[in-house]
């Protein structure tokens, strides 16, 4: 009876949502996420903003040092004293490295340039120094061939690659592999987590009903199928509530926390710029600091601008994804996958007496789920139209994750339709099997259940 099914679902929902653990978890996760996000952003920005200072000792007589161009990440300063002194000096000054250009360096074939670093030298740092040196030497060479500085500046151009994907109709769309993969990954993770977290809750719930021996009272009022589906749907509602709250609260928390922190940073820089201009005791120093500040400010503002345009770009690219199909597909695979696995988790809960016995039955259920996730993010994400992607997005046990990964990259309509059809068949099948196991299992006590036994249960008469 429909009303009983609703009563069961309602109870499952309310008892869970009112638990203290649910409320705490619902509130804590967004805060953790927001905190984590701020933390990551902090680290990333500090990584970008820190400037490596490299000293240069130029004995080559080619005046290479003056041609090394400083960037916000890498600043060059002349070293003082002899090479031996400079080696000690840059470490004492807490600078990051020393470039030594020996005398008699050949412009055409500059061999013997040395870079001394503190401890291990990272590839990134070495690469940046090499880039700067290469540029300096090529400038030198070009100047030697008779080009003026002005001509040189005009020759240099900066290329930003804009990738454009063409769809079948020839329509152009900005393609951003990162945004597409990111979307695919996020959707797959959401489904994976949802099935896992709430599937296990179904199993526990059935186990609790069994071990508290209320099952027989329940079954004299409610059909086992209604009881099982009520539980699955009630817990689905719990999960949706939790995910929705997490989404809203995370958004809220990050939109409160991030500007707060950003505001503090801004205040700090304002303070810093204010100080030197006020105390201009030594004009030399103040000037150098203020130019440095200017440099830094323009650097950050430029960075900010690129971040902003980057974000708009990302939105634009997201908007270019097949949003309708993704949303529709996500909901179908989210619910279908949850139902399919939820029914199986319920059956496991019904089949065993003891929570510790669940292990042997959990494995075959969780395996396709974990497999589809791992293969999904490693293989399908790289090759969303390959044979692995195709077959895994057809099999109902793996399609909820596999197909959702493929969706942002675009999936042919017939494949989507076939996959959804198979998924529906799949979940009707598992719900049928689970209901039979459930019906027999819930009243079976004190018996170690084997797979053979489960097979027999399928064919028991009502």
């Amino acid at each position: 009876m429909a009303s009983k099914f609703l009563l069961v679902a309602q109870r499952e929902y309310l008892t869970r949502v009112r638990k203290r653990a649910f409320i705490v978890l619902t509130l804590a996760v967004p805060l953790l996420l927001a905190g984590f996000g701020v933390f990551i952003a902090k680290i990333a920005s500090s990584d970008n903003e820190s400037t490596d200072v490299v000293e240069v000792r130029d004995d080559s007589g080619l005046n290479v040092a003056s041609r090394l161009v400083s960037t916000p990440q890498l600043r060059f300063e002349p070293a003082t004293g002899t090479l031996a002194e400079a080696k000690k000096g840059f470490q004492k000054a807490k600078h990051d490295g020393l470039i030594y250009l020996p005398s008699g360096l050949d412009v055409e074939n500059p061999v013997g340039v040395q870079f001394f670093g503190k401890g291990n030298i990272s590839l990134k740092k070495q690469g940046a120094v090499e880039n700067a040196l290469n540029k300096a030497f090529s400038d030198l060479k070009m100047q030697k061939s008779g080009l003026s500085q002005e001509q040189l500046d005009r020759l240099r151009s900066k290329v930003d690659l804009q990738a454009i994907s063409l769809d079948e109709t020839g329509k152009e769309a900005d393609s951003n592999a990162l945004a597409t993969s990111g979307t695919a990954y996020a959707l797959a993770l959401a489904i994976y987590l949802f099935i896992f977290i709430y599937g296990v809750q179904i199993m526990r719930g059935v186990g609790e009903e069994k071990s508290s021996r209320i099952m027989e009272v329940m079954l004299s009022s409610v059909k086992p199928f209604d009881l099982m589906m009520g539980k699955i749907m009630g817990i689905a509602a719990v999960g949706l509530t939790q995910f929705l709250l997490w989404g809203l609260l995370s958004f809220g928390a990050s939109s409160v926390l991030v500007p707060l922190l950003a505001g503090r940073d801004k205040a700090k820089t304002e303070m810093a710029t204010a100080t030197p201009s006020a105390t201009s005791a030594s004009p030399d120093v103040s000037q150098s600091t203020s130019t440095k500040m200017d440099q830094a400010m323009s650097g950050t503002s430029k960075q900010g601008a690129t971040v902003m345009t980057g974000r708009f770009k990302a939105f634009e690219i997201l908007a270019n994804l097949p949003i309708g199909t993704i949303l529709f597909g996500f909901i179908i695979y989210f619910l279908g996958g949850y139902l399919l696995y939820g029914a199986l988790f319920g059956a496991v809960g019904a089949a065993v007496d003891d929570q510790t016995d669940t292990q042997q039955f959990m494995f075959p259920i969780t395996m396709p789920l974990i497999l589809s996730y791992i293969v999904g993010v490693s293989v399908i994400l790289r090759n969303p139209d390959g044979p692995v992607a195709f077959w895994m997005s057809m099999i109902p046990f793996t399609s909820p994750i596999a197909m959702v990964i493929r969706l942002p990259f675009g999936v042919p309509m017939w494949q989507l339709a076939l996959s959804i059809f198979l998924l529906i068949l799949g979940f009707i099948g598992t719900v049928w099997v689970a209901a039979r196991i459930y019906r027999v299992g819930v009243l079976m006590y004190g018996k170690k259940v084997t797979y053979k036994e489960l097979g027999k249960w399928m064919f028991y008469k009502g």
Partner: protein
Amino acid sequence: MKPILEAIDVRKAYANHVALSGVSLAIPEGSIFGLLGPNGAGKTSLIRIITQITGADEGEIRFRGERLNPGHIAQIGYLPEERGLYKKMKVGEQLLYLAQLRGLSRADATARIKQWLNRFEIKEWAGKNVEDLSKGMQQKVQFIATVLHEPSLIILDEPFSGFDPINANLIKDEILRLKQEGATIIFSTHRMESVEEMCDNIALINRSRKVLDGPIGVIRDQFKTNTYEVEGRGKLLVVHPDFEVVEQKERENGHFYARVQLHAGVRPNDLLRYLIGAVEVEAFREKIPSINEIFIRRVRETMPETLVEETT
């Protein structure tokens, strides 16, 4: 009286054994009915069919003449042998939930819960989780859950097992009160002595078969052996043409206890007359067979191959 429930040739088999092989019963409305038999006889299987937890392989159950269907769930109350409630749910909410599942409206259920909690003097526990209650209180809650929707048929499987003596008496009184209000009650138990004084009708079940049923008084009369218990002072003759002393025990100070079986056609007054002449009579009563004894005799007569082990 018209039966509230009829079972007609009900059969049920599981993978490895037959639980019911052709059981027919009629349970009169307004009576207390004892469904008696040892563990594993098939009682719980029959009850699960009546409560529609499982279905019969063959045969039919009729409720007030109608074939049993889900519409009857609201008229049946069931207290299973395995007692249990949701541990983390509040008493009041739990009762409300179970009553609603039995088809009661929210308002009706709330009013009746209040009434029952008052009657059992556990009103202040309505807001507590079930796991915080003592065992005795949980039993009361369980019983309330069984009868809250005012079922016309109440099925109690092993009704007094697990109840402490005080609660058992409380439950007995409630059952009698419910019977007076018109409810029919089925007791299912292997401890026959625990319910025999309350039952109006009984059915004895052994190894998936009904071995005997009928009004308890009729059955007792049928199984009377014309035996009398005598207590007094002196000594009884062991041989007499009218009766046979089946057993005689000597007690201190010349007292004795004896069981005397009358031969056919001899009346108890004849025995009493003889006794008055021979000994000093202190007690004289007919030996009424217990249900347990009837059960064992009946099984010996009808199914000697299934000799029963001790039915405690």
